[in-house]
């Protein structure tokens, strides 16, 4: 790895590019500002992307800030080890399609990750600027999105070369980022891959969860098309374990499975009144709006609207829900979060965008009970104040109740976004599959192989609620692991056959 990076860094053009500008000058430059829609304007539309993306000039200017470090610590912050300086330097010299190719060496969905990765905790947190200069990091995420979008818009999306077909059938279960990256890698290796999805749309959380204003569907669709061009098949409305069992699929010739069924089961707080009408999970809220288009007149699916909407939680899901509520016309859209802003797990940019859009933050506040009108529709919630105590196992300071601090807030819709548990559908169909006590599938972390040899798993079903990039990384690891496993089996069979 180190060797490879060094060889790449010593290519002529990179040496030349480095000599063009002194590091001092590079570090003097200001970080680019992402152009975005005006907050007052954008809250009128559920489907307009907030970040507009960089133009070529500002992307190249931002790229010139990167010093092409001898020891690029940024790469250590990226869960899939994208060769960050290589792609950035390609942007700086104007070879944007080359930059996109560099991204695709390791990432299946750069246009997605450039938009949704928590860069401030990953690559950008480990940039030399952050670590040593105490300056704003190189905008790695913005540049990644720029290169990927540039390629998508150029119409020159390269279909990766695929090896000769080996006619070995494998199945991916679920169609989220883990499965998509798995399918891409397996298709490249020549496998006959089918992706099975329970819903009527492909993309998992990328489609039903993350809203259009943050991740437009067309960005995902381009990637799906390119997978289709590589020969990947998609089966919608197909629940593996139900529509057909694993045994059925084996009989149909599938030789191995990659389970990436996600962490779809929403958690509730189990406090009094939580089943009143008007109180729903963020998954239900976002699915109605994103997957079922409930906010659009021509569609039949309804969605609850209200004047006062409270969203409980502080993660990406909570931010997506509360900003959706604002866009659907809430006068008062509130975040109710039991810790303080510093502990919020959401991407920093989303919190900033939410603030710009007039979202109210009731931090250090926790719901204790709900009340309803005579029709059973929620109309009031009781909350209590919290303060931060000692750090807990996760290193975050534990919130403790401030006694006697309870008060009521009028609400007509409450969205509960306090986390998800692993989808139990697949494990419940396979009693011999080893799962943890949290319901996640246990796998070998190197190969992603489960306790059932022909079954591999990755993404949220293994990690609990995690991130797109980690799910994607798992998909790639599993593809490598499964390929080894299947090739090993083939060899075994071949020797057995010749032994006869």
């Amino acid at each position, binding site marked *: 790895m180190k060797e490879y990076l060094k060889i790449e860094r010593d290519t002529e053009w990179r040496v030349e590019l480095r000599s063009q500008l002194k590091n001092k000058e590079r570090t003097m430059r200001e970080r680019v500002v992402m152009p975005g829609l005006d907050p007052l304007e954008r809250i009128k539309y559920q489907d307009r992307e907030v970040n507009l993306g960089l133009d070529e000039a500002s992307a190249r200017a931002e790229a010139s800030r990167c010093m092409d470090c001898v020891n690029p610590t940024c790469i250590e912050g990226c869960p899939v080890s994208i060769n960050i300086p290589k792609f950035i330097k390609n942007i700086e010299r104007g070879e944007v399609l080359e930059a996109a190719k560099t991204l695709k060496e390791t990432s299946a969905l750069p246009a997605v990750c450039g938009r949704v990765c928590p860069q401030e905790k990953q690559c950008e947190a480990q940039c030399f600027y952050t670590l040593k200069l105490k300056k704003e990091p190189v905008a790695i995420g913005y540049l990644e999105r720029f290169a990927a979008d540039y390629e998508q818009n150029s119409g020159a999306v390269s279909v990766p070369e695929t090896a000769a077909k*080996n*006619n*070995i*059938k494998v199945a991916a279960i679920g169609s989220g980022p883990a499965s998509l990256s798995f399918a891409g890698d397996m298709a490249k290796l020549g496998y006959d891959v089918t992706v099975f999805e*329970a*819903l*009527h749309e492909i993309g998992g959380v990328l489609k*039903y969860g993350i809203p259009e204003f943050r991740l437009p569907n067309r960005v995902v669709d381009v990637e799906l098309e390119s997978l289709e061009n590589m020969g990947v098949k998609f089966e*919608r*409305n*197909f*629940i593996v374990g*139900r*529509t*057909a*069992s694993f045994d*059925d699929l084996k*009989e*149909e*010739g599938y*030789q191995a499975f990659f389970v990436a069924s996600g962490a*779809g*089961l*929403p958690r*509730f707080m*189990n406090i009094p009144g*939580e*089943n*009143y*009408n008007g109180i*729903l*999970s963020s*998954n*239900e809220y976002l*699915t*109605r709006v994103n997957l*079922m*288009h409930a906010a659009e007149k*021509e*569609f*039949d*699916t309804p969605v609850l609207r209200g004047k006062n909407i409270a969203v409980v939680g502080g993660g990406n899901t909570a931010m997506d829900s509360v900003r959706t509520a604002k866009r659907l016309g809430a006068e008062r859209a509130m975040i109710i979060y039991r810790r303080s802003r510093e502990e919020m797990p959401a991407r920093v940019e989303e919190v900033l965008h939410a603030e710009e859009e007039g979202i109210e933050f009731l931090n250090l506040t926790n719901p204790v009970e709900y009340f309803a009108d*005579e*029709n*059973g529709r929620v109309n009031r919630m009781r909350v209590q104040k919290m303060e931060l105590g000692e750090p807990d196992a996760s290193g975050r300071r534990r919130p403790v109740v401030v006694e006697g601090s309870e008060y009521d807030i009028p609400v007509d819709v409450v969205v509960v976004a306090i986390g998800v548990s692993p*989808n*139990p*559908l697949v494990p419940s169909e396979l009693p011999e599959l080893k799962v943890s006590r949290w319901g996640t599938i246990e796998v070998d972390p190197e190969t992603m192989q489960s306790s059932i040899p022909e079954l591999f798993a990755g993404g949220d079903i293994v990690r609990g609620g995690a991130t797109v990039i980690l799910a994607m990384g798992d998909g790639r690891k599993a593809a490598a692991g499964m390929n080894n496993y299947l090739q090993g*089996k*083939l*060899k075994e*069979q*071949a020797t057995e*056959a*010749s032994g006869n």
Partner: protein
Amino acid sequence: MARVPPDFTKTLLFLTCQIRLKNKNSDLTMYQIVEKESFSEKVVKLVVHAPRIARARKPGHFIILRIDEQGERIPLTIAQADKNAGTITLVVQKVGVSSTRLCEMNPGDSILDLVGPLGKATHIHQAGTILACGGGVGIAPLLPIVEGFKKAGNRVVTVLAARSKDLIILEDEIRQWSDEVIIMTDDGSYGNKGLVTTGAEEVINREQIDECVAIGPAVMMKFTALLTKKYNIPTQASLNAVMVDGTGMCGACRANVGGETKFTCIDGPEFDAHKIDFDELIQRLGGYMAEEKEAWEQANG
């Protein structure tokens, strides 16, 4: 040698099977409606081409469908299935936009999306004598359960209830798998006059009942559960909660069972009727406590 796929013969076999399957139904597209029958102005039976589901389904299972791009995802019980023909039977009652649009579809039309089988299958076993109660369109999901219990060697007494004669559906099919069928109508236009509970209580007083199954509108199930609780008869009820995905992802279908929150689509749809908080269910379906009586009348429709 190594080039030959390991399960070559198996694959070949499978391929030929597939081709045969395809040829047989070559004129059918996925989820195409092959047959339609109107039971009444409000209740329609549809036979739909869905070979995988026809093969995999068991009594108690349901599907979720979406008519077209604009449609909602709505849950419907699989009333019957024919593995050989590759079809499932749905019985739909018009209650709102989607169910009405579905009832207006015709043979030859195709449903855009249809997924299943969903839910836990009914626990069919040898119990002795089963009392099966079906109200209104709840008779449709009751049919495969009655059939299952009968085939498992039980004595099955079925009480069917509806507002009036023309709303009693699937009577012949139900009779085929019941030792006795009692019909109750609100207006006395067919069978006996009265509610499902009147008929059920008569049976309970007459003979030993080991288990009861109740399917119908929430209010009907509530009162049936109250009745069987009085006589200590274990009872299953099938909840018709509001649903979106049907895979445990959204929580729209949550219900309070024995003080715990359960998801109807993956933990149910059948639960121990004596533990279900029916009032909450009715509320969550958009009904009102004060209008329970009115709803009850409707319930038999």
